[in-house]
């Protein structure tokens, strides 16, 4: 049955303080030393070693990242200048080819014009030659006709 025996008893009771107290204190102190060597020190070493490792890695990674960013910026400026350079070269080449084309076109035009002129002149010469010849033949023919007519008489 329920046996409540709080204070009255000469022996026992809830607040019976005796040598259990100092012995328990000694036990807890001993436990502190045991746990320190069994638990806190070894686990602490492992955890702190890992934390150091991780933080070192993070620092290293950050350094590398900043380096990468610097290189990236470098490359970007290089790329930019290369692009403008390429643009410049392309424009130059376009202008050059345009100039060359115009020159060639002019040259060809001139040549064509001159040969056309020459051909025209030749045609004219030949035409006049042919006309001369024709008129000479006509003269010859007319002279022949005239002579024949005179002879028949």
């Amino acid at each position: 049955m329920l046996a409540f025996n709080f204070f009255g008893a000469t022996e026992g009771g809830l607040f019976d303080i005796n040598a259990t107290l100092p012995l328990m204190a000694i036990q807890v102190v001993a436990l502190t030393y045991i746990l320190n060597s069994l638990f806190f020190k070894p686990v602490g070493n492992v955890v702190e070693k890992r934390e150091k490792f991780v933080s070192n890695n993070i620092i290293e990674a950050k350094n590398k990242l900043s380096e990468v960013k610097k290189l990236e910026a470098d490359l970007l400026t290089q790329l930019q200048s290369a692009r403008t350079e390429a643009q410049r070269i392309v424009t130059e080449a376009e202008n050059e080819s345009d100039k060359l084309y115009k020159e060639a076109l002019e040259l060809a035009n001139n040549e064509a014009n001159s040969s056309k002129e020459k051909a025209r002149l030749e045609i004219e010469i030949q035409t006049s030659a042919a006309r001369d010849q024709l008129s000479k033949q006509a003269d010859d023919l007319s002279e022949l006709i005239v002579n024949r007519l005179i002879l028949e008489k």
Partner: protein
Amino acid sequence: MLTNFAALEVGQHLYWQIGNIRLHGQVFLTSWILLGALLVFISLGTKKMENDPKGLQNLLEFLWDYIRDLARTQIGEKVYRDWMPFIGTLFLFVFVSNWGGALIPWRLIKLPSGELGAPTADINTTIALALLVSLSYFYAGLSNKGWRYFEYYVHPTPIMLPFKILEDFTKPLSLSFRLFGNILADELVVGVLVFLVPLILPIPVMFLGLFTSAIQALIFATLAAYYIGEAVEEHH
């Protein structure tokens, strides 16, 4: 039979007589069993420490981290390392005692007198722990600040002196009685409920007891760390 099973024995002890001194045997028996289990658990977990923690090591590292956070927030960055094993031991001891007392059906083991239960339900254990905390904070203050530790007693104004002196007595008193009262009350409530209604009804109270037990362990360790932190704190 049920009444026998559920009987409560409050204030009964299993006495061990060694020469002139008398001990509460049941307290030592349970504490040895529980601390033995704790040490076995810890030895297993720390047997093969690896950089990639697995299984038990993971759990122990979590525990270590938890205790470190507790010690660091209360004591401060400068000296928490010195006191972390003590705070951690207090936490583990109280936690293992409370939960061991609540989870293991000790009543199945019959003793000639008294009964097995949480070691923290005995006033001797809690006073021992509280006095250790008192000694610790005195030692921490004196070793860190020398005689300047006593400036703390007159810190904002000398009017505080009697209250600060009174505090040195109320701190261990409140620490020990809080733990003792909570754990004993929990055991009593569960015991009475099991005695009255042996089925189902005690279960929520048992869960509440587990909760209280864990909270009490946390409170004890936190307050111990806070007192030490208060003693080593530098006033400007």
